């Protein structure tokens, strides 16, 4: 369970989030909102990449401010642009990076890399330079690099924004198949129709928090009113 308790966030004197309180327990949660509404900053609070200016965020009881390392082991993060997330030049090396940081022994590491690459159809690309992959394959590699660390929660920040339709579907299927709790920021409203919960942000505040059809209707109304 992730608890966000009365959290406000200010960056460079700009208020980004205002007194947000939430408890995240559902398996599939979507975060939507206009550009600059604070949704990307919000999800960065969930694994301690940002820490609140006020209030606190607890992941399974661990405070992101004081126990960042433990939190990051529980919360994986997939960024919008996989090119900014893939840090090693060869596919298998990048997947192994997180495991190396966790101190997983080499033999076990190789087996886990094999398994996750196989799961995402990238096993044949194992030795390939990561810059030669297609956009969709890069995003799947980014997801594989996170999932291999077996986090309990996966946060995805607009993972399909830069992809064409075919790759969007591939990544969307991969997200559907996740065993973990997934919290996804997205502008693709059709991707979240089957989610358990949709939270709508506007100007740093939550304006709707409901099942998809109700929350998305409120979102569209708010955008039309603006």
């Amino acid at each position, binding site marked *: 369970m992730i608890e966000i308790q009365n959290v406000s966030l200010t960056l460079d004197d700009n208020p980004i989030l205002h007194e947000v309180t939430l408890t995240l327990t559902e398996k599939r949660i979507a975060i939507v909102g206009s550009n600059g509404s604070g949704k990307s900053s919000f999800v*960065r609070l969930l*694994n301690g*990449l940002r820490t609140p200016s006020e209030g606190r965020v607890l992941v399974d009881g661990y405070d992101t401010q004081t126990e960042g*390392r433990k939190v*990051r*082991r529980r919360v*994986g*993060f997939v*960024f919008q*642009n996989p*090119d*900014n*997330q*893939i*840090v*090693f*030049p*060869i596919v298998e*090396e990048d997947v*192994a*990076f*997180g495991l190396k*940081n*966790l101190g997983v022994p080499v033999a076990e590491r190789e087996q886990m890399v094999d398994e996750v690459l196989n799961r995402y159809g990238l096993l044949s690309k194992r*030795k390939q*330079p*990561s*810059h030669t992959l297609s956009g969709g394959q890069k995003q799947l590699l980014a997801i594989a*690099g*996170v999932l291999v*660390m077996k986090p309990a929660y996966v946060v995805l920040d607009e993972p399909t924004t830069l992809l064409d339709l075919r790759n969007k579907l591939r990544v969307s299927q991969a997200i559907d198949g996740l065993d973990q709790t997934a919290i996804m920021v997205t502008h693709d409203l059709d991707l979240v129709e089957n989610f358990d919960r949709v939270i709508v942000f506007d100007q740093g505040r939550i304006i709707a928090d409901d099942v998809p059809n109700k929350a998305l209707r409120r979102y569209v109304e708010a955008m039309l009113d603006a």
Partner: protein
Amino acid sequence: MLDLYVEGRSALHRLGPGWKILGLAFSGTVLFAVDHVWLSILWLAISLTLYAVAGLPLWRAWRQIRPALWLFALIFVVQVLLHSWQLGLLVIIRFAVLLLLAGLLTLTTRSSDMIDGLEAGMRPLHRLGVRTESISLAISLTFRFIPVLTSVVHEVREAQSARGLERSVFAIAIPSIIRTLRMSEEISDAIDARGF
């Protein structure tokens, strides 16, 4: 450099990265310490033989040198004007051998092995409080982001060409630098998020 690792089972592939890095450092030292053209030609022949030993075709060797040909031409002309054509030839052969050997190192060594080797070599610095894993990660990021930054500059150049600014260094450099700085923030977050 961007050819990176080529799968193989040769003795050179199996040799520890530390030995290969030492060999490269030794070759550089000998080549520049001894002013003898025949020694440089011998080293060139050895380097090409090592490509064959590693099971790498000669076009791989050629690809290491080809991008530097214009630089070789420039060095040769300057040396001929200032000294002699013999010295120009010697300097070009030295650089060519070093490029070949550096290429051979990356072609026969996985970047992760090379980084592990460098980390092992730098271990004594740990005692002085140096975070050697950060240095090796920085080297890895350099390998990884050369093609990414190339594509950033290419995209910016295309965008500026569409506005008739393809000859403006500032119009290409400033957006490229800004995009790179923004990218670096996210890369830093991504590294943090993966438990580094």
